[in-house]
């Protein structure tokens, strides 16, 4: 069974009828809307954000129909699907197989994974060829930013190259040893180097008799793990950190939101920022929510009282209510922005807490 089937069932299970299929499509295809970003976090499905990158609406609807016809899900009301008992037992059966996705974090990394991978793979190719004294290889990445970056990082002396190769071998091996053989092999096969060009996802899918989506997800899971470890344990992963630290260390904000954040850190007020940046209040609110979600140090308490936050969290825990409107009805004195900030800030924690 293709991996996308249990994956979609799992997502529908966690969302439990609170969103229409179009909203779920936005999450899985990785569309950058404030709704899909906050939903991913709110429902505890951050790993799956952008899991089916590139899928079209039509393809997604066909997939839903197929899963529906397998009796794994049913249509509760128009375009709202919930998981059936069959679906539940499928999730139990497939739990082990889906284990590799624990390392996936689409919400955090989907926007930087391509740039990071390009650097890792080009650097490895260059290093590998240099180690074998082979200088006229043909680079497998052309993107100018990547090429410039790799050039600037590349060790000049042979001694240094040897040291780095040893360290990089250690870092990648360490990460791959923590995972299953298949995923590890897929990751290594994607790499290029001396006397070998990396494989395409399609080729790996054939080689391992897996569907292409599963191969892609296995690869991305490991890549995300590399990004996570090189950020959180930069001392243990100095080479990976030197390659991609500049991406992993800045919060994954949209350009516009990061400008807003910069002004906030300079103690500008919301009103001032709106004036300076000529933004509508709705846009600025989206930025605040985005910032609350992405930046742990960002405090929401200038915008909402601690007691109110606690009450919203408490209300959620009692009702498992995922929609904004009922929460707003329960707390008429709070604005939508305030509620959204709580959800953005606490969403992950709440969702993790509830599923444990």
């Amino acid at each position, binding site marked *: 069974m293709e991996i996308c089937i249990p994956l979609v069932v799992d997502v529908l299970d966690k969302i439990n009828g609170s969103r229409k299929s179009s909203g779920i499509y936005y999450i899985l295809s990785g569309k950058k809307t404030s709704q899909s970003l906050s939903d991913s976090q709110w429902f505890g499905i951050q790993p799956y954000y952008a899991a089916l990158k590139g899928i079209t609406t039509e393809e997604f609807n066909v997939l839903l129909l197929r899963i529906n016809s397998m009796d794994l899900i049913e249509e509760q009301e128009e375009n709202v699907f919930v998981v059936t008992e069959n679906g539940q037992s499928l999730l139990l059966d497939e739990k082990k197989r889906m284990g590799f996705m624990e390392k996936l974090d689409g919400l955090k990394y989907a926007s930087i994974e*391509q740039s990071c991978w*390009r650097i890792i793979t080009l650097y*490895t190719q260059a*290093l*590998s060829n240099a*180690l*074998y004294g082979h200088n*006229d290889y*043909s*680079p*497998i*990445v*052309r993107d*100018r930013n990547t090429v410039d970056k790799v050039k600037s990082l590349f060790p000049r002396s042979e001694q240094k190259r040897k040291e780095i*190769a*040893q360290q*990089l*071998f250690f870092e*990648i*091996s360490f990460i*791959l040893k923590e995972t299953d*053989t298949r995923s*590890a*092999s897929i*990751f*290594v*096969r994607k*790499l*290029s*180097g*001396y*006397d*070998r*060009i*990396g*494989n*395409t*996802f*399609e*080729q790996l899918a*054939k*080689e391992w008799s897996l569907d292409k989506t599963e191969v892609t997800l296995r690869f991305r899971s490991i890549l995300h793990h590399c990004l996570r470890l090189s950020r959180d344990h930069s001392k243990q992963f100095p080479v990976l950190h030197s390659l991609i630290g500049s991406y992993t260390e800045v919060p994954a904000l949209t350009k516009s939101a990061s400008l807003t954040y910069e002004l906030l850190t300079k103690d500008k007020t919301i009103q001032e920022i709106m004036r300076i940046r000529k933004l509508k209040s709705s846009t600025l609110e989206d930025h605040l929510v985005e910032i609350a979600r992405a930046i742990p140090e960002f405090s929401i308490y200038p915008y909402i009282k601690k007691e109110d936050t606690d009450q919203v969290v408490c209300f959620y825990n009692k009702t498992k209510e995922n929609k904004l409107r009922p929460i707003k009805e329960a707390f008429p004195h709070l604005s939508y922005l305030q509620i959204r900030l709580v959800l953005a800030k606490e969403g992950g924690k709440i969702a993790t807490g509830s599923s444990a």
Partner: protein
Amino acid sequence: MQLEAALKQIYGFDEFRPGQKEILTDLLSGQDVLGMLPTGTGKTLIYQMAAHLLKGRALIVSPLVSLMQDQVDQFKQAGFKKTIALNSFLDHGEKQHILRQLDDFQFVFVSPEIIQSKFVQEALISVEWSLFVVDEAHCISQWGHEFRPHYLDLALMKKRLGEPLCLALTATATKQVQHDIRYYLEMKQPKVHIYSVNRPNISLFVESFSDLEQKQDKAIDLINRLKGPGIVYTNTRKAAEQLVMILQERGINDVAYYHGGMDQDERLLVQKQFLHSQLSLIVCTNAFGMGINKSDIRYVIHLHTPSTIEGYVQEIGRAGRDLAPSVAILLFHLSDLEIPFHFIEHELPDETQMDFVLYPHDSLVHGTLLERLQMAGMSETGQRFMEYHLHKADVLYETHVSSDTKTALKSLLKKKIEERKKEKYHALRMIEHWIKSPECKRSALLSYFGETLGEEIDNCCSSCRAEFSRFYGKNESNKADYVAWEDELGRLLRQEVEHQA
């Protein structure tokens, strides 16, 4: 002698290929040159060496935007690091960055479209040029198979750059096209070096089928038997993918398809795998076969006929660049012509699309013609065509055009389109005729380009009863043996990996 020494020093080669030295000598003595050299005989080397020996800067106009980066890579790999490409793939910031540093580059590739921009022109004019290279120069002629209207303005550009030496290169130009190149580029008494399009080391086979299934079986049988590496050309992306699927079902694994619809990173991997002989066969559409620069390709199969003889010659020219015996096989079925017919009919803008640009809808009335053109949903060629003519008429950046001008423009465009279509149908009929004719395939090809075949050639062609079998051979089995990831990672990074017993 000096030239040979330079050749040895730069490339490590002992000898020039036919034409290279002759053209170089003329360029170095200050003569413009029109060179026609068969594909795969090292045209690039000529302008690399010329610019190097002239200690000057070369501007290279090339229509193959999607290949430019390949060319830049190849230049850099050959040691010419100061090479850059200016084309529509760059964003504004990157373009500016390059233009500000033009002085630092020795080889600058440009598309004919990008040098229409005033901004780019100003920057190009501000530095000195020793060499003005027009690659694929046949694109300047309506009679050429890949006419690019913007090529017609190159003479003007050449003047504005201070008339550097001009080198026009092509692999396939009939007499008429050769004339057009000299005329439109306003070349000054150029030395003309025409080398035969004949590639004696490539045997030519054409086989017609009345049954599509039989044709496919034949293709698969050939792929099974022929010694690789090889290329199969198809006329659609889907056909390329399907053939690969069928081959894989039959246990042929070192094969991949390659076309413009693929993810960019993955496409590059396939291309490099083929160059690196990890794949023994690549199945591709004609639009994307050109990035493949590999010297030991042993066979080219056409699963469908190309739409022009020039296109065919270019495509089979990717075989046997190492001069070893190679084979080109065209498998023809009458239905092959449907796609080119459709293409010719729909490639250039139709009436609705023209009206969309010229007679805007209320909501589009404020856009410029260029903006509307980009929204009209035309093919790339159609867009280029319209862009050129609107630019010529000085209305490309206007929002409003008088109705007289519109009427005149529209009738001009329609006339031009009809002319183009006629030429293209003619070209298609020429290759169909060549396929069906019982004549010697090689003589017939040569006579299309106004040449006669002098010598007798071994294993000439299917009409001369050459045999496939001499091109059969075993492909070395791909080393796809399973290697544990630890070992492979260790090998890549040259580490000793300890094995547990």
